[in-house]
């Protein structure tokens, strides 16, 4: 057991025992070592089973929306979880006094499928060391490059630690800068090729809503995409375009770049390309340095009577 893991367990146990939180959300044992499960500890015995290792993959912030228990909820937060929690707080879907954030610094999560492909066998444990990942299988430990083992969403991560926490398991790392290399590549193509690209992507959409249900910015109590007067249930290319454009516009300026939508998509649609395009444009058009981090002034999310851009027809000031 790592030092951070034992600290997490004792901290969660303390929080639960003292009644500071009623549930602690983290990761616990799954059906195999490389796939820990989201875990909801409600007593010290549950806390004693919490896990913290590089296979902890899924993001946790959205579970704050589900919780029906009356007391506050403790939650383990890596950088992506932290931004997700900030998103829910900024959007007033969760109140600050009901969340107790335990921050941890994450250097990327190992994708068990990639690890299986790389190692040729079921991975039993993983360790991150700089640009290398040490994977242990039944036949021993071998070394692989980071890029071939981590979740895609972790490879472009600029936020190893949450920006704030109520407790820390280790020293937070400063945030980096998100770059958008793939957006430029797509923009260089002409409209026909871009259309052909997205047609191929969206034609495989199952409309299973895995992207929406994974997204900490997609938390409307009632979603227009469930209402046939906005989008009928027929699966067609047009409707799939409509679905994804609606979602992309709706999370524009609020997307936290966790990449969980793309990770969850069973059809492997590169949804982060759309989100990244919006983020890059927001950065360039509004001068927002870090378009995926919730901030006081949301460039697309607030009404402001002295907005320099007119909103009436013809651009006249109101």
């Amino acid at each position: 057991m790592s030092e951070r893991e034992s600290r997490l367990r004792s901290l969660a146990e303390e929080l639960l025992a003292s009644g500071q939180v009623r549930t602690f959300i983290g990761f616990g044992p799954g059906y195999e070592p490389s796939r820990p499960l989201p875990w909801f500890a409600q007593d010290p015995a549950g806390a004693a089973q919490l896990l913290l290792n590089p296979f902890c993959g899924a993001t946790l912030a959205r579970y704050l929306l589900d919780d029906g228990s009356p007391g506050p909820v403790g939650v383990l937060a890596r950088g992506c979880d932290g931004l997700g929690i900030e998103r829910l707080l900024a959007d007033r879907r969760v109140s600050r006094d009901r969340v107790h954030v335990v921050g941890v610094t994450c250097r990327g999560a190992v994708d068990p499928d990639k690890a299986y492909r790389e190692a040729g066998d079921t991975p039993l444990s993983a360790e991150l060391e700089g640009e290398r990942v040490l994977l242990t299988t039944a036949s021993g430990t071998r070394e692989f490059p980071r890029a071939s083992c981590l979740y895609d969403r972790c490879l472009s991560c600029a936020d190893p630690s949450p920006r704030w926490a109520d407790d820390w398991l280790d020293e937070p790392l400063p945030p980096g800068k998100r770059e958008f290399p793939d957006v430029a590549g797509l923009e260089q193509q002409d409209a026909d090729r871009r259309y052909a690209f997205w047609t191929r992507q969206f034609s495989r959409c199952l409309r299973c809503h895995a992207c929406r249900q994974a997204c900490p910015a997609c938390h409307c109590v009632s979603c227009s995409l469930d209402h046939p007067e906005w989008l009928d249930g027929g699966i067609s290319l047009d409707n799939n375009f409509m679905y994804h454009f609606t979602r992309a516009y709706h999370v524009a300026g609020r997307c936290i770049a966790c990449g969980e939508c793309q990770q969850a998509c069973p059809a492997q649609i590169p949804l982060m390309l759309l989100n990244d395009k919006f983020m890059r444009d927001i950065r360039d058009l509004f001068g927002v340095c870090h378009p995926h981090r919730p901030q006081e002034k949301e460039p697309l999310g607030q009404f402001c009577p002295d907005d320099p851009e007119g909103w009436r027809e013809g651009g006249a000031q109101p």
Partner: protein
Amino acid sequence: MKFIAAAKLPLLLERLGRHSQVYAPVAVDGRVWLSPWTGEDIAGGYVNPVNSLKTLVYPQTEAVLEFEGGETDVTVREASPPAPQVIFGGRPCDAAGLDLIARVFMEGPFVDELFRRRREATTIMTVACRQAAPSCFCRAMGLSPASERGSDVLFFPGPEGYLVEALTEAGEQILEQAAGLLDDATGDQARRACQELPVPLAGDLNTVRLTPEEGFEHPYWEHLARRCRSCGTCTYLCPTCYCTALFDVTRGTRGRRLRGWDCCQFKDFLLMAGGHNARPQKKQRVRNRFLHKLSYHPANYGEQACVGCGRCVDNCPVCLHMAGVLKDLGEVERA
């Protein structure tokens, strides 16, 4: 038993394509889908296509009828009958899954005409498995990498091509159309290799049964449902989920009545006219998915509604899947 060389397979599909829509496994952006085939490279080396055979016989949306007119004068036109189709490259688990849901749609006093027409217009050319994924558990569900259920023709892949066996009359017709492309088989090795292929998740999971009386209020469901995200990945990829919604799409004076998949994990799945939701809680919806497959379906049809294809295992973003639940239920204390 016959043999077809790998190089002659496209010629066979081309020939079948003269009278039918042909589907074959094609790699799209790195993953294999059963796709309308127009001469693309036929993918190999996949364990299971992303889409199961179900998706081509019971499409995600299909037209039931079209209508046009005003308040007093409405013309209704039935959807045109489906064109004949031949599907190459599905796996034995999926073919069994298709047969399993065919019983639901076609047995008993109420036959679903949409399903029946398309099922009868479909010929299934299944390719038995030479490799299993860590998530495969067909044997645990009483099937095998060479199961015959639901297939018209079974292909056993070998290094040079496929052993071919017709299992039904429709399958025999395929072999007749393949005249000149087939040789007599000289051995049985490819078939035996498929039959003997080990499958990672073993055991007698298909003996797990759950009666609602025993398990309905068990705290396990609450525990399980906590991590569910209420998306439709499991049900939409599942080769045996078949829940249906019927709805109209109208533009001006014209419209279509469509039938499409529904998903018991969506929060408004049982939202009734008038606003009552019969399963408002996530726990109820998650429980329903597993009780349907392990209790209600066995009660009605004498078999579990799972074929061990492993799609839910591979794709659920939070590992809430049938293999895991079956394992858990073997251990869980019944209330």
